[in-house]
Protein backbone atom coordinates (compact mmCIF):
# COMPACT_ATOMS: atom_id res chain seq x y z
CA UNK A 1 0.00 0.00 0.00
CA UNK A 2 0.93 3.66 -0.20
CA UNK A 3 1.72 5.48 3.04
CA UNK A 4 3.11 8.82 4.20
CA UNK A 5 6.47 8.07 5.83
CA UNK A 6 8.36 10.60 7.91
CA UNK A 7 11.97 11.06 6.75
CA UNK A 8 13.51 13.90 8.72
CA UNK A 9 12.54 17.37 9.92
CA UNK A 10 10.35 18.97 7.23
CA UNK A 11 10.43 15.97 4.93
CA UNK A 12 7.77 13.32 4.41
CA UNK A 13 7.57 10.92 1.48
CA UNK A 14 4.83 8.72 0.07
CA UNK A 15 6.24 5.23 -0.10
CA UNK A 16 5.05 1.75 -0.92
CA UNK A 17 5.01 -0.36 2.24
CA UNK A 18 3.50 -3.75 3.15
CA UNK A 19 -0.23 -3.88 3.95
CA UNK A 20 -1.09 -4.08 7.65
CA UNK A 21 -2.32 -7.38 9.04
CA UNK A 22 -4.29 -8.53 12.07
CA UNK A 23 -1.76 -8.95 14.90
CA UNK A 24 -4.08 -9.38 17.89
CA UNK A 25 -7.59 -10.81 18.31
CA UNK A 26 -9.20 -7.43 18.99
CA UNK A 27 -7.69 -5.81 15.85
CA UNK A 28 -9.50 -4.64 12.76
CA UNK A 29 -8.12 -3.54 9.41
CA UNK A 30 -9.68 -0.38 8.00
CA UNK A 31 -9.49 0.82 4.40
CA UNK A 32 -9.04 4.55 4.79
CA UNK A 33 -11.35 6.79 2.77
CA UNK A 34 -10.30 10.13 4.29
CA UNK A 35 -7.46 11.19 6.55
CA UNK A 36 -6.55 14.69 7.64
CA UNK A 37 -3.31 16.41 8.49
CA UNK A 38 -3.78 17.58 12.06
CA UNK A 39 -2.11 20.68 13.44
CA UNK A 40 -0.23 18.45 15.85
CA UNK A 41 1.16 16.48 12.88
CA UNK A 42 3.04 19.66 12.09
CA UNK A 43 5.01 19.21 15.33
CA UNK A 44 6.11 15.81 14.01
CA UNK A 45 6.73 17.18 10.53
CA UNK A 46 8.92 19.92 12.00
CA UNK A 47 10.93 17.40 14.00
CA UNK A 48 9.80 18.58 17.44
CA UNK A 49 8.38 15.29 18.72
CA UNK A 50 11.05 12.97 20.15
CA UNK A 51 11.30 9.29 19.12
CA UNK A 52 9.79 9.67 15.66
CA UNK A 53 11.93 7.50 13.38
CA UNK A 54 12.71 7.63 9.70
CA UNK A 55 10.15 5.50 7.91
CA UNK A 56 7.36 5.87 10.48
CA UNK A 57 3.88 6.14 8.97
CA UNK A 58 2.24 9.22 10.47
CA UNK A 59 -1.31 10.58 10.79
CA UNK A 60 -4.05 10.06 13.40
CA UNK A 61 -7.28 11.62 12.12
CA UNK A 62 -9.12 9.19 9.87
CA UNK A 63 -12.17 7.25 8.83
CA UNK A 64 -12.89 4.43 6.45
CA UNK A 65 -14.39 1.03 5.88
CA UNK A 66 -13.80 -2.16 7.83
CA UNK A 67 -12.20 -4.83 5.65
CA UNK A 68 -11.20 -7.44 8.22
CA UNK A 69 -11.80 -8.09 11.92
CA UNK A 70 -9.92 -10.26 14.40
CA UNK A 71 -11.50 -13.15 16.27
CA UNK A 72 -11.90 -11.06 19.42
CA UNK A 73 -13.93 -8.27 17.82
CA UNK A 74 -17.46 -9.37 18.52
CA UNK A 75 -18.94 -6.87 20.86
CA UNK A 76 -18.96 -3.34 19.51
CA UNK A 77 -19.98 -1.06 22.35
CA UNK A 78 -19.97 2.36 20.68
CA UNK A 79 -21.76 3.59 17.62
CA UNK A 80 -25.01 3.73 15.75
CA UNK A 81 -27.15 0.63 16.44
CA UNK A 82 -24.09 -1.50 16.13
CA UNK A 83 -23.78 -4.82 17.90
CA UNK A 84 -21.08 -6.31 15.76
CA UNK A 85 -18.33 -4.84 13.69
CA UNK A 86 -18.36 -6.37 10.24
CA UNK A 87 -16.45 -5.95 7.01
CA UNK A 88 -18.14 -3.23 4.99
CA UNK A 89 -19.07 -1.14 8.04
CA UNK A 90 -18.23 2.54 7.76
CA UNK A 91 -16.36 3.81 10.82
CA UNK A 92 -14.63 6.81 12.33
CA UNK A 93 -11.70 6.01 14.61
CA UNK A 94 -10.55 8.11 17.57
CA UNK A 95 -6.91 9.16 17.43
CA UNK A 96 -6.10 7.94 20.94
CA UNK A 97 -6.05 4.19 21.50
CA UNK A 98 -7.87 2.81 24.56
CA UNK A 99 -8.19 -0.79 25.72
CA UNK A 100 -11.65 -0.29 27.24
CA UNK A 101 -10.92 -2.34 30.36
CA UNK A 102 -8.34 -0.60 32.51
CA UNK A 103 -9.31 1.70 35.36
CA UNK A 104 -8.89 4.78 33.16
CA UNK A 105 -10.86 3.56 30.15
CA UNK A 106 -13.64 2.41 32.46
CA UNK A 107 -13.80 5.89 33.92
CA UNK A 108 -14.01 7.43 30.42
CA UNK A 109 -10.45 8.79 30.56
CA UNK A 110 -9.42 7.00 27.40
CA UNK A 111 -6.30 8.99 26.60
CA UNK A 112 -4.90 7.82 29.94
CA UNK A 113 -5.31 4.14 29.05
CA UNK A 114 -2.86 1.87 30.86
CA UNK A 115 -2.69 -0.86 28.23
CA UNK A 116 -2.38 0.48 24.70
CA UNK A 117 1.26 1.56 24.67
CA UNK A 118 3.57 -1.41 24.07
CA UNK A 119 6.66 0.74 24.58
CA UNK A 120 5.58 2.20 27.86
CA UNK A 121 8.92 2.09 29.60
CA UNK A 122 10.13 5.08 27.61
CA UNK A 123 7.19 7.20 28.61
CA UNK A 124 7.34 5.99 32.19
CA UNK A 125 10.89 7.28 32.37
CA UNK A 126 10.06 10.67 30.86
CA UNK A 127 6.60 11.30 32.31
CA UNK A 128 6.50 9.01 35.34
CA UNK A 129 3.48 7.13 33.98
CA UNK A 130 2.25 5.57 30.78
CA UNK A 131 -0.58 7.17 28.82
CA UNK A 132 -2.53 5.88 25.87
CA UNK A 133 -0.91 5.34 22.51
CA UNK A 134 -1.80 7.60 19.61
CA UNK A 135 -1.69 6.46 15.97
CA UNK A 136 1.38 7.65 14.12
CA UNK A 137 2.59 9.84 16.95
CA UNK A 138 6.11 8.70 17.90
CA UNK A 139 7.47 5.61 19.61
CA UNK A 140 7.12 7.33 22.97
CA UNK A 141 3.36 7.16 22.42
CA UNK A 142 3.27 3.56 21.26
CA UNK A 143 4.89 3.50 17.85
CA UNK A 144 1.69 2.46 16.05
CA UNK A 145 1.65 2.94 12.28
CA UNK A 146 -0.38 6.02 11.41
CA UNK A 147 -3.36 6.77 9.24
CA UNK A 148 -1.99 8.65 6.26
CA UNK A 149 -2.04 5.45 4.27
CA UNK A 150 -4.43 3.27 2.29
CA UNK A 151 -5.04 0.85 5.16
CA UNK A 152 -4.51 0.86 8.91
CA UNK A 153 -4.57 -1.67 11.71
CA UNK A 154 -6.88 -0.57 14.54
CA UNK A 155 -6.22 -2.31 17.87
CA UNK A 156 -9.02 -2.82 20.44
CA UNK A 157 -11.46 -2.25 17.58
CA UNK A 158 -14.40 -3.49 19.65
CA UNK A 159 -14.19 -0.33 21.77
CA UNK A 160 -12.08 1.82 19.44
CA UNK A 161 -14.33 2.74 16.52
CA UNK A 162 -17.63 4.50 16.00
CA UNK A 163 -19.94 3.18 13.33
CA UNK A 164 -21.39 5.93 11.16
CA UNK A 165 -24.28 5.95 8.68
CA UNK A 166 -23.50 5.55 4.98
CA UNK A 167 -25.32 8.58 3.65
CA UNK A 168 -23.25 11.53 4.93
CA UNK A 169 -20.10 12.70 3.14
CA UNK A 170 -16.73 12.03 4.80
CA UNK A 171 -16.10 15.73 5.45
CA UNK A 172 -19.12 15.80 7.80
CA UNK A 173 -17.84 12.88 9.85
CA UNK A 174 -14.05 12.75 9.64
CA UNK A 175 -13.33 15.31 12.35
CA UNK A 176 -15.10 13.44 15.14
CA UNK A 177 -11.90 11.34 14.96
CA UNK A 178 -9.77 14.05 16.53
CA UNK A 179 -10.31 17.77 15.98
CA UNK A 180 -13.91 18.06 17.21
CA UNK A 181 -13.56 16.03 20.41
CA UNK A 182 -10.32 17.89 21.14
CA UNK A 183 -12.03 21.26 20.80
CA UNK A 184 -15.13 20.01 22.61
CA UNK A 185 -13.11 18.68 25.53
CA UNK A 186 -11.17 21.95 25.61
CA UNK A 187 -14.45 23.79 26.15
CA UNK A 188 -15.79 21.21 28.60
CA UNK A 189 -12.69 21.55 30.79
CA UNK A 190 -13.50 25.28 31.15
CA UNK A 191 -16.59 24.44 33.20
CA UNK A 192 -18.38 27.33 31.47
CA UNK A 193 -20.95 29.27 33.50
CA UNK A 194 -23.68 31.50 32.05
CA UNK A 195 -22.24 34.90 31.18
CA UNK A 196 -18.69 33.62 30.79
CA UNK A 197 -16.23 34.97 28.26
CA UNK A 198 -13.94 32.32 26.76
CA UNK A 199 -10.74 33.23 24.91
CA UNK A 200 -9.33 30.71 22.44
CA UNK A 201 -5.72 30.87 21.25
CA UNK A 202 -5.33 29.33 17.81
CA UNK A 203 -7.96 29.35 15.05
CA UNK A 204 -7.11 26.06 13.36
CA UNK A 205 -9.68 23.29 13.28
CA UNK A 206 -9.38 22.47 17.01
CA UNK A 207 -9.71 26.14 17.94
CA UNK A 208 -12.79 26.55 15.70
CA UNK A 209 -14.51 23.55 17.29
CA UNK A 210 -13.54 24.75 20.76
CA UNK A 211 -15.27 28.08 20.05
CA UNK A 212 -18.42 26.45 18.71
CA UNK A 213 -18.45 24.07 21.69
CA UNK A 214 -17.97 26.94 24.16
CA UNK A 215 -21.13 28.59 22.82
CA UNK A 216 -22.99 25.28 22.99
CA UNK A 217 -22.00 25.04 26.66
CA UNK A 218 -23.34 28.47 27.48
CA UNK A 219 -20.52 30.95 26.93
CA UNK A 220 -21.77 34.48 26.37
CA UNK A 221 -18.75 35.66 24.42
CA UNK A 222 -15.95 33.89 22.60
CA UNK A 223 -12.79 35.73 21.62
CA UNK A 224 -10.39 34.19 19.11
CA UNK A 225 -6.67 34.97 18.92
CA UNK A 226 -4.48 34.21 15.89
CA UNK A 227 -2.27 35.99 13.40
CA UNK A 228 -3.63 34.74 10.06
CA UNK A 229 -6.48 36.85 8.65
CA UNK A 230 -8.15 33.90 6.91
CA UNK A 231 -8.31 31.95 10.15
CA UNK A 232 -9.68 34.90 12.06
CA UNK A 233 -12.24 35.37 9.29
CA UNK A 234 -13.29 31.74 9.66
CA UNK A 235 -13.63 32.21 13.43
CA UNK A 236 -15.88 35.24 12.86
CA UNK A 237 -17.96 33.64 10.17
CA UNK A 238 -18.46 30.07 11.39
CA UNK A 239 -17.70 30.17 15.10
CA UNK A 240 -19.26 33.64 15.68
CA UNK A 241 -16.21 34.77 17.61
CA UNK A 242 -14.80 38.23 18.17
CA UNK A 243 -11.20 38.27 17.07
CA UNK A 244 -7.76 39.59 17.99
CA UNK A 245 -4.80 39.54 15.61
CA UNK A 246 -1.85 39.45 17.98
CA UNK A 247 0.48 40.82 15.35
CA UNK A 248 -1.59 44.00 15.18
CA UNK A 249 -2.31 44.54 18.86
CA UNK A 250 -1.04 43.27 22.20
CA UNK A 251 -3.39 40.35 22.81
CA UNK A 252 -3.16 40.60 26.60
CA UNK A 253 -4.06 44.30 26.61
CA UNK A 254 -6.82 43.79 24.08
CA UNK A 255 -8.37 41.00 26.17
CA UNK A 256 -8.35 43.22 29.27
CA UNK A 257 -10.03 46.02 27.34
CA UNK A 258 -12.66 43.71 25.87
CA UNK A 259 -13.56 42.25 29.27
CA UNK A 260 -13.92 45.41 31.31
CA UNK A 261 -10.45 45.00 32.78
CA UNK A 262 -11.24 41.59 34.29
CA UNK A 263 -9.72 39.20 31.77
CA UNK A 264 -11.47 36.19 30.23
CA UNK A 265 -13.13 33.70 32.58
CA UNK A 266 -11.56 30.80 30.72
CA UNK A 267 -8.69 30.50 28.26
CA UNK A 268 -8.21 27.63 25.81
CA UNK A 269 -4.81 26.82 24.30
CA UNK A 270 -5.40 25.30 20.85
CA UNK A 271 -1.85 25.97 19.69
CA UNK A 272 0.74 23.98 21.63
CA UNK A 273 4.48 23.77 21.59
CA UNK A 274 5.21 25.64 18.37
CA UNK A 275 3.49 28.82 19.41
CA UNK A 276 4.72 32.08 17.97
CA UNK A 277 5.30 35.12 20.09
CA UNK A 278 6.57 38.55 19.33
CA UNK A 279 9.84 40.32 19.99
CA UNK A 280 12.58 39.28 22.35
CA UNK A 281 10.60 36.57 24.12
CA UNK A 282 9.95 34.82 20.82
CA UNK A 283 13.62 35.04 19.88
CA UNK A 284 14.55 33.55 23.26
CA UNK A 285 12.25 30.56 22.84
CA UNK A 286 13.07 29.94 19.20
CA UNK A 287 16.76 29.96 20.05
CA UNK A 288 16.44 27.70 23.08
CA UNK A 289 14.30 25.26 21.15
CA UNK A 290 16.77 25.14 18.28
CA UNK A 291 19.62 24.54 20.71
CA UNK A 292 17.52 21.82 22.36
CA UNK A 293 17.68 23.63 25.68
CA UNK A 294 13.90 23.74 25.73
CA UNK A 295 11.62 21.39 23.84
CA UNK A 296 8.47 23.50 23.76
CA UNK A 297 7.73 27.18 23.15
CA UNK A 298 5.14 28.17 25.74
CA UNK A 299 4.07 31.62 24.49
CA UNK A 300 0.40 30.83 24.70
CA UNK A 301 0.68 29.38 28.19
CA UNK A 302 2.50 32.45 29.43
CA UNK A 303 0.03 34.81 27.85
CA UNK A 304 -2.97 32.89 29.17
CA UNK A 305 -1.63 32.96 32.73
CA UNK A 306 -1.37 36.73 32.66
CA UNK A 307 -4.52 37.39 30.65
CA UNK A 308 -6.98 35.19 32.56
CA UNK A 309 -9.20 36.73 35.18
CA UNK A 310 -8.48 35.97 38.84
CA UNK A 311 -9.75 32.49 39.67
CA UNK A 312 -10.07 31.71 35.96
CA UNK A 313 -9.46 28.44 34.19
CA UNK A 314 -6.79 27.53 31.67
CA UNK A 315 -7.72 24.64 29.40
CA UNK A 316 -4.74 23.29 27.50
CA UNK A 317 -5.43 21.19 24.41
CA UNK A 318 -2.36 22.14 22.34
CA UNK A 319 0.30 19.46 22.47
CA UNK A 320 3.42 19.84 24.61
CA UNK A 321 6.12 17.22 24.47
CA UNK A 322 8.66 17.96 27.13
CA UNK A 323 9.92 20.97 28.98
CA UNK A 324 8.89 24.59 29.03
CA UNK A 325 10.77 27.55 30.33
CA UNK A 326 10.21 30.95 31.95
CA UNK A 327 6.66 30.43 33.12
CA UNK A 328 5.04 33.28 35.08
CA UNK A 329 4.01 30.86 37.76
CA UNK A 330 3.64 33.64 40.29
CA UNK A 331 0.69 34.86 38.29
CA UNK A 332 -0.90 31.42 38.37
CA UNK A 333 -0.61 30.92 42.12
CA UNK A 334 -1.44 34.44 43.18
CA UNK A 335 -4.43 34.66 40.84
CA UNK A 336 -5.71 31.26 41.93
CA UNK A 337 -5.91 29.86 38.44
CA UNK A 338 -7.13 26.37 37.62
CA UNK A 339 -5.18 24.39 35.03
CA UNK A 340 -6.95 21.59 33.15
CA UNK A 341 -5.47 19.70 30.24
CA UNK A 342 -4.95 16.42 28.46
CA UNK A 343 -5.12 14.53 25.24
CA UNK A 344 -8.75 14.14 24.29
CA UNK A 345 -10.80 11.16 25.46
CA UNK A 346 -12.21 10.39 22.00
CA UNK A 347 -14.35 7.40 22.90
CA UNK A 348 -16.10 9.48 25.59
CA UNK A 349 -17.26 12.21 23.21
CA UNK A 350 -17.59 10.72 19.75
CA UNK A 351 -21.07 9.30 20.02
CA UNK A 352 -22.39 12.57 21.44
CA UNK A 353 -20.70 14.52 18.65
CA UNK A 354 -21.97 12.18 15.95
CA UNK A 355 -25.50 12.78 17.20
CA UNK A 356 -24.99 16.54 17.01
CA UNK A 357 -24.02 16.13 13.36
CA UNK A 358 -26.88 13.73 12.60
CA UNK A 359 -29.33 16.17 14.26
CA UNK A 360 -28.07 18.95 12.00
CA UNK A 361 -26.67 20.96 14.94
CA UNK A 362 -23.08 20.85 13.77
CA UNK A 363 -21.58 20.86 10.28
CA UNK A 364 -17.82 20.63 10.65
CA UNK A 365 -17.03 20.51 6.92
CA UNK A 366 -16.36 24.27 6.83
CA UNK A 367 -12.79 23.78 8.07
CA UNK A 368 -11.67 21.89 4.97
CA UNK A 369 -9.68 24.18 2.69
CA UNK A 370 -7.80 21.54 0.69
CA UNK A 371 -8.53 18.06 -0.59
CA UNK A 372 -5.56 16.24 -2.05
CA UNK A 373 -4.78 12.71 -3.19
CA UNK A 374 -2.55 10.87 -0.71
CA UNK A 375 0.36 11.11 -3.16
CA UNK A 376 0.37 14.87 -2.67
CA UNK A 377 0.85 14.66 1.11
CA UNK A 378 4.31 16.32 0.96
CA UNK A 379 2.73 19.32 -0.74
CA UNK A 380 -0.11 19.28 1.78
CA UNK A 381 2.35 19.39 4.69
CA UNK A 382 4.26 22.20 3.09
CA UNK A 383 1.30 24.51 2.48
CA UNK A 384 -0.18 23.71 5.91
CA UNK A 385 3.08 24.45 7.68
CA UNK A 386 3.81 27.62 5.73
CA UNK A 387 0.13 28.67 5.77
CA UNK A 388 0.29 29.08 2.01
CA UNK A 389 -2.79 29.30 -0.16
CA UNK A 390 -4.90 30.12 2.96
CA UNK A 391 -4.47 26.51 4.07
CA UNK A 392 -6.34 25.63 7.28
CA UNK A 393 -7.18 21.94 6.88
CA UNK A 394 -5.91 19.38 4.39
CA UNK A 395 -7.87 16.18 3.81
CA UNK A 396 -5.98 13.41 2.05
CA UNK A 397 -7.82 10.91 -0.13
CA UNK A 398 -5.99 7.58 -0.41
Amino acid at each position, binding site marked *: *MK*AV*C*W*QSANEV*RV*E*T*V*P*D*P*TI*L*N*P*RDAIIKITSTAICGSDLHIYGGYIPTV*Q*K*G*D*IIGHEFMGEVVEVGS*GVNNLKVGVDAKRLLPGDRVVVPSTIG*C*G*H*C*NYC*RRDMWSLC*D*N*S*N*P*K*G*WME*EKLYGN*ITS*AIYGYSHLL*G*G*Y*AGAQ*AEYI*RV*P*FADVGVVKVPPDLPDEMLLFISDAIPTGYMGAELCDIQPGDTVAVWGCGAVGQFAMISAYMMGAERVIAIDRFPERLEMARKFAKAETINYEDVDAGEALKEMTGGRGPDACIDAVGLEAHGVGLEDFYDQTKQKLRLETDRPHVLRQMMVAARKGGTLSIMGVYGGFVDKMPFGAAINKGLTFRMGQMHGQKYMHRLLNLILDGKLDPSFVVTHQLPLEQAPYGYEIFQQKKDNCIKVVLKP
Partner: protein
Amino acid sequence: MTATPGDQINTNQGEASEAERWASLIGGGAMVLMGLKQGSLRGALTALAGGGLIYQGVTKQSTIQQAQEIVGMNKPIKVEKTVTINKSPEELYRYWHDFEKLPTFMKHLKSVKVDNEKRSHWIANAPLGNSVEWDADILEDRENQFISWASVEGADVDNSGFVRFQKAPGDRGTEVKVVLEYNPPGGALAAVFAKLFGEEPEQQIGDDLRRFKMLMEAGEIATTEGQPSGRSH
Protein backbone atom coordinates in the same frame (compact mmCIF):
# COMPACT_ATOMS: atom_id res chain seq x y z
CA MET B 1 6.47 -3.88 66.74
CA THR B 2 3.96 -6.46 65.71
CA ALA B 3 1.34 -6.66 63.08
CA THR B 4 -1.32 -9.13 62.15
CA PRO B 5 -2.49 -10.05 58.69
CA GLY B 6 -5.59 -7.90 59.01
CA ASP B 7 -3.69 -4.72 59.77
CA GLN B 8 -4.07 -1.87 57.35
CA ILE B 9 -0.69 -0.66 56.28
CA ASN B 10 0.08 2.91 55.38
CA THR B 11 2.37 2.66 52.39
CA ASN B 12 3.65 6.20 52.70
CA GLN B 13 5.58 5.75 55.88
CA GLY B 14 8.88 4.43 54.66
CA GLU B 15 10.76 1.53 55.99
CA ALA B 16 8.80 0.83 59.15
CA SER B 17 5.63 0.27 57.20
CA GLU B 18 7.47 -1.94 54.74
CA ALA B 19 8.60 -4.09 57.65
CA GLU B 20 5.07 -4.16 58.95
CA ARG B 21 3.85 -5.22 55.57
CA TRP B 22 6.21 -8.14 55.60
CA ALA B 23 5.12 -8.92 59.10
CA SER B 24 1.51 -8.82 58.10
CA LEU B 25 2.28 -11.09 55.22
CA ILE B 26 3.56 -13.89 57.38
CA GLY B 27 1.25 -13.03 60.17
CA GLY B 28 1.13 -13.15 63.91
CA GLY B 29 3.88 -11.25 65.56
CA ALA B 30 6.80 -12.33 63.43
CA MET B 31 9.66 -9.94 63.01
CA VAL B 32 10.77 -9.69 59.51
CA LEU B 33 14.06 -9.96 57.84
CA MET B 34 14.25 -7.46 55.04
CA GLY B 35 17.90 -8.11 54.51
CA LEU B 36 17.90 -7.03 50.93
CA LYS B 37 20.90 -4.84 51.48
CA GLN B 38 23.38 -7.02 53.30
CA GLY B 39 21.81 -10.43 53.15
CA SER B 40 20.37 -12.26 50.20
CA LEU B 41 16.77 -12.34 49.13
CA ARG B 42 16.98 -16.10 49.11
CA GLY B 43 17.98 -16.08 52.76
CA ALA B 44 15.08 -13.85 53.61
CA LEU B 45 12.63 -15.95 51.69
CA THR B 46 13.93 -19.18 53.14
CA ALA B 47 13.68 -17.77 56.62
CA LEU B 48 10.18 -16.60 55.80
CA ALA B 49 9.25 -20.05 54.59
CA GLY B 50 10.77 -21.64 57.66
CA GLY B 51 8.87 -19.27 59.86
CA GLY B 52 11.91 -18.47 61.97
CA LEU B 53 12.36 -14.85 61.10
CA ILE B 54 14.80 -12.52 62.69
CA TYR B 55 14.58 -8.78 62.54
CA GLN B 56 17.82 -7.52 61.12
CA GLY B 57 16.84 -3.97 60.62
CA VAL B 58 15.31 -2.55 57.57
CA THR B 59 17.45 -0.56 55.23
CA LYS B 60 16.47 2.88 54.15
CA GLN B 61 17.79 2.36 50.66
CA SER B 62 15.44 1.07 48.05
CA THR B 63 16.44 -2.15 46.43
CA ILE B 64 16.09 -0.48 43.07
CA GLN B 65 18.84 1.95 43.91
CA GLN B 66 21.04 -0.91 44.96
CA ALA B 67 20.35 -2.70 41.74
CA GLN B 68 21.53 0.32 39.83
CA GLU B 69 24.62 0.54 41.96
CA ILE B 70 25.58 -3.04 41.60
CA VAL B 71 24.79 -3.89 38.03
CA GLY B 72 28.17 -5.28 37.36
CA MET B 73 29.11 -8.87 36.93
CA ASN B 74 29.62 -11.14 39.90
CA LYS B 75 27.37 -9.11 42.10
CA PRO B 76 23.80 -10.11 42.74
CA ILE B 77 21.24 -8.13 40.79
CA LYS B 78 18.12 -7.25 42.72
CA VAL B 79 15.11 -5.69 41.09
CA GLU B 80 11.67 -4.81 42.28
CA LYS B 81 8.62 -3.45 40.52
CA THR B 82 4.98 -2.94 41.40
CA VAL B 83 2.02 -2.53 39.11
CA THR B 84 -1.69 -2.13 39.84
CA ILE B 85 -4.00 -4.43 37.91
CA ASN B 86 -7.74 -3.97 37.68
CA LYS B 87 -8.57 -7.55 38.72
CA SER B 88 -9.02 -9.37 42.02
CA PRO B 89 -6.04 -10.87 43.88
CA GLU B 90 -7.70 -14.27 43.43
CA GLU B 91 -7.79 -14.03 39.66
CA LEU B 92 -4.21 -12.79 39.37
CA TYR B 93 -2.82 -15.31 41.84
CA ARG B 94 -4.53 -18.12 39.97
CA TYR B 95 -3.05 -17.13 36.61
CA TRP B 96 0.44 -16.58 37.98
CA HIS B 97 0.42 -19.77 39.96
CA ASP B 98 0.07 -21.72 36.74
CA PHE B 99 3.81 -21.32 36.06
CA GLU B 100 3.57 -22.93 32.65
CA LYS B 101 1.66 -19.85 31.48
CA LEU B 102 4.33 -17.39 32.59
CA PRO B 103 6.12 -17.37 29.19
CA THR B 104 3.01 -15.77 27.63
CA PHE B 105 4.03 -12.49 29.23
CA MET B 106 7.63 -13.06 30.38
CA LYS B 107 9.44 -12.52 27.15
CA HIS B 108 12.80 -14.06 28.00
CA LEU B 109 11.24 -17.34 29.16
CA LYS B 110 11.03 -20.12 26.64
CA SER B 111 9.14 -22.59 28.79
CA VAL B 112 8.32 -23.62 32.32
CA LYS B 113 7.45 -27.19 33.13
CA VAL B 114 5.87 -28.05 36.45
CA ASP B 115 7.24 -31.31 37.86
CA ASN B 116 5.30 -31.47 41.09
CA GLU B 117 3.75 -29.28 43.80
CA LYS B 118 7.08 -27.77 44.72
CA ARG B 119 9.42 -28.12 41.79
CA SER B 120 9.43 -26.73 38.27
CA HIS B 121 11.93 -26.60 35.41
CA TRP B 122 12.63 -23.23 33.73
CA ILE B 123 14.24 -22.55 30.36
CA ALA B 124 15.13 -19.00 29.37
CA ASN B 125 15.97 -17.91 25.83
CA ALA B 126 19.34 -16.33 25.36
CA PRO B 127 20.66 -14.74 22.18
CA LEU B 128 22.34 -16.76 19.42
CA GLY B 129 20.39 -19.90 20.13
CA ASN B 130 21.69 -20.21 23.67
CA SER B 131 19.46 -21.03 26.56
CA VAL B 132 19.89 -21.29 30.29
CA GLU B 133 18.00 -23.71 32.50
CA TRP B 134 17.30 -24.26 36.13
CA ASP B 135 15.06 -26.06 38.55
CA ALA B 136 13.21 -23.96 41.06
CA ASP B 137 11.33 -24.79 44.24
CA ILE B 138 8.41 -22.94 45.69
CA LEU B 139 9.47 -21.73 49.12
CA GLU B 140 6.26 -20.18 50.33
CA ASP B 141 2.82 -20.23 48.84
CA ARG B 142 -0.03 -18.28 50.40
CA GLU B 143 -3.21 -18.54 48.44
CA ASN B 144 -4.22 -15.28 46.74
CA GLN B 145 -1.42 -13.40 48.48
CA PHE B 146 2.13 -14.49 47.93
CA ILE B 147 4.40 -16.92 46.12
CA SER B 148 8.16 -17.14 46.61
CA TRP B 149 10.65 -19.39 44.87
CA ALA B 150 14.35 -20.06 44.50
CA SER B 151 16.47 -22.03 42.09
CA VAL B 152 17.90 -25.27 43.44
CA GLU B 153 21.56 -26.10 43.51
CA GLY B 154 23.22 -26.60 40.15
CA ALA B 155 21.17 -23.95 38.35
CA ASP B 156 22.78 -22.17 35.39
CA VAL B 157 21.67 -18.92 36.97
CA ASP B 158 21.10 -18.83 40.67
CA ASN B 159 17.92 -16.82 41.25
CA SER B 160 15.14 -16.26 43.70
CA GLY B 161 12.11 -14.04 43.97
CA PHE B 162 8.60 -13.47 45.11
CA VAL B 163 5.36 -12.02 43.85
CA ARG B 164 2.83 -10.47 46.18
CA PHE B 165 -0.82 -9.71 45.46
CA GLN B 166 -2.33 -7.04 47.67
CA LYS B 167 -5.74 -5.46 47.27
CA ALA B 168 -5.48 -1.81 46.23
CA PRO B 169 -7.56 0.81 48.00
CA GLY B 170 -11.03 1.52 46.68
CA ASP B 171 -11.90 -0.37 43.54
CA ARG B 172 -8.50 0.01 41.96
CA GLY B 173 -7.76 -3.68 41.75
CA THR B 174 -4.65 -5.40 43.03
CA GLU B 175 -1.11 -4.19 43.61
CA VAL B 176 1.23 -6.81 42.21
CA LYS B 177 4.79 -6.56 43.46
CA VAL B 178 7.66 -8.63 42.16
CA VAL B 179 11.13 -8.78 43.68
CA LEU B 180 13.84 -10.78 41.96
CA GLU B 181 17.48 -11.52 42.62
CA TYR B 182 19.98 -13.07 40.26
CA ASN B 183 23.49 -14.16 41.02
CA PRO B 184 25.32 -13.89 37.73
CA PRO B 185 27.18 -17.03 36.76
CA GLY B 186 30.85 -17.04 35.90
CA GLY B 187 32.71 -18.50 32.96
CA ALA B 188 31.14 -18.91 29.55
CA LEU B 189 27.65 -18.38 30.92
CA ALA B 190 28.47 -14.93 32.18
CA ALA B 191 28.20 -13.33 28.73
CA VAL B 192 24.98 -15.19 27.96
CA PHE B 193 23.55 -13.99 31.23
CA ALA B 194 24.50 -10.39 30.55
CA LYS B 195 22.68 -10.50 27.21
CA LEU B 196 19.72 -12.34 28.66
CA PHE B 197 18.91 -9.87 31.37
CA GLY B 198 20.19 -6.83 29.57
CA GLU B 199 21.60 -3.65 30.95
CA GLU B 200 18.38 -2.77 32.66
CA PRO B 201 16.93 -5.83 34.35
CA GLU B 202 14.49 -3.56 36.12
CA GLN B 203 13.02 -2.48 32.82
CA GLN B 204 12.67 -6.11 31.83
CA ILE B 205 10.64 -7.03 34.88
CA GLY B 206 8.65 -3.81 34.39
CA ASP B 207 7.84 -4.84 30.83
CA ASP B 208 6.90 -8.34 31.99
CA LEU B 209 4.55 -6.96 34.61
CA ARG B 210 3.00 -4.56 32.13
CA ARG B 211 2.38 -7.41 29.71
CA PHE B 212 0.79 -9.39 32.56
CA LYS B 213 -1.46 -6.42 33.25
CA MET B 214 -2.44 -6.08 29.55
CA LEU B 215 -3.21 -9.77 29.33
CA MET B 216 -5.31 -9.75 32.50
CA GLU B 217 -7.17 -6.51 31.77
CA ALA B 218 -7.40 -6.27 27.99
CA GLY B 219 -7.20 -9.96 27.20
CA GLU B 220 -4.27 -9.42 24.86
CA ILE B 221 -0.82 -7.88 24.86
CA ALA B 222 -0.54 -4.64 22.89
CA THR B 223 2.04 -4.88 20.14
CA THR B 224 3.34 -3.14 17.08
CA GLU B 225 5.59 -5.98 16.00
CA GLY B 226 4.84 -6.95 12.43
CA GLN B 227 3.21 -3.70 11.39
CA PRO B 228 4.28 -1.90 8.22
CA SER B 229 6.67 1.02 8.05
CA GLY B 230 8.91 2.71 5.53
CA ARG B 231 11.75 0.63 6.99
CA SER B 232 10.24 -2.81 6.51
CA HIS B 233 11.01 -3.32 2.84
